[in-house]
């Protein structure tokens, strides 16, 4: 199993994570909170002047936050953007309605066999040991994306992590960070909007409804596993990547 010298440490990392989970640490004493509280000094009345510049700035900032949050334009602007493994994830405080309609095919999407797909892309294509052979394999956008389909499950593998390839729109909660095969991954537990950003910079595909999704990367290849309803199920599948 030990391959070339400069290969990644994925297997060792996974083993360390598993080892960490096995390590027993005695539980903290139950009365810790009380002990700490007993050691804290009584609150001392503040001797600081009432209106320091810092305080004025804080009040101003708070006022601005209220102002921004109270206007519709301001609300739409409250967004956190997370970029991970070729996916741009926009988390909006007040997301718009979820998109409807069937997913339209990606640009230049063609049905192929697994072997044809392997021959047409420049990156190493993964298969999943936890699932049977995919029902359907498609190559799209000049070999940039390979999608594999099983009932209720879709795996996208795509090349290049420096540009955004997908864009997701969702509401709270913020996506959960997790580990897949010893590397960091992101789990989005809810349904959300998904759009594909074509390689040539053309107009994005119409946004479609996507199910719970696990995102991680395997070397230089981005992986997007959509469909398994829980993180545990998604990880079982993702960990079986070969």
């Amino acid at each position: 199993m030990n391959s070339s010298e400069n290969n990644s440490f994925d297997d060792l990392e996974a083993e360390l994570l598993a080892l960490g989970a096995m390590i027993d640490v005695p539980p903290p004493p139950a009365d810790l909170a009380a002990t700490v509280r007993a050691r804290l000094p009584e609150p001392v009345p503040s001797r600081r002047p009432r209106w320091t510049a810092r305080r004025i700035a804080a009040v101003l900032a708070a006022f601005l936050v209220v102002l921004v949050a109270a206007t519709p334009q301001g609300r739409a602007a409250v967004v956190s953007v997370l970029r991970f493994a070729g996916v741009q994830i926009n988390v909006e405080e007040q997301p718009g309605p979820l998109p409807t309609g069937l997913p339209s095919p990606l640009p230049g999407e063609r049905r192929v066999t697994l072997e044809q797909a392997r021959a047409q892309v420049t990156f190493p294509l993964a298969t999943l040991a936890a699932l049977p052979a995919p029902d359907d394999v498609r190559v799209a956008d000049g070999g940039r994306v390979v999608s594999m389909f099983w009932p209720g499950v879709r795996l996208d593998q795509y090349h290049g992590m420096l540009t955004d390839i997908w864009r997701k729109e969702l509401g709270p909660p913020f996506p959960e960070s997790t580990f897949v095969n010893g590397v960091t991954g992101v789990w989005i537990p809810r349904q959300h909007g998904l759009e594909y950003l074509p390689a040539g910079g053309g107009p994005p595909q119409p946004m479609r409804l996507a199910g719970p999704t696990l995102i991680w990367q395997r070397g230089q290849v981005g992986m997007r596993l959509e469909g398994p309803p829980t993180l545990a199920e998604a990880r079982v599948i993702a960990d079986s990547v070969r």
Partner: protein
Amino acid sequence: MLVARYSAVAHRTAHLLGAGAEAEDVVQEAFVKAYRHLAGFRRDSAFRPWLLRIVANETHNLTRGRGRRAELAVRLGQEPEGSGPEDPAGAAVAADRSARLLAAVRALPDREREAVVCRYFLQLSEAETAEVLGCPVGSVKSRTFRGLRRLREEVGRELL
């Protein structure tokens, strides 16, 4: 209160970074210090790595005070159940392998061991690890990498 929410992770961190049986004292001291310095805590940063950094510093002070090397004094618990039917021989091999990997982690130089412990045993991100250990993210990457390489040299040949 914050103590209730973070005591488990703080305790685990102190333990794994080498406080051993004195982890309770370290955590207690860390919470008291954290409370005193709450004003210095920047609102825009995460509380957890900030607290864990205090825990890490306290652990350092403790082990330095004792004049000996921080030890990773932990033992392996039972493997989570439900891993399917396994033959006892296979389980014994797996247990032996885990014990040897743990021994190898223990034998790492301090800096590499801390990075490996934070990244994998505490499952912190690189950025969180950098904050906890008080070093740049680049150092976390290089220490982790050197640690992994050393671990692979120690146990990798026959195991992986």
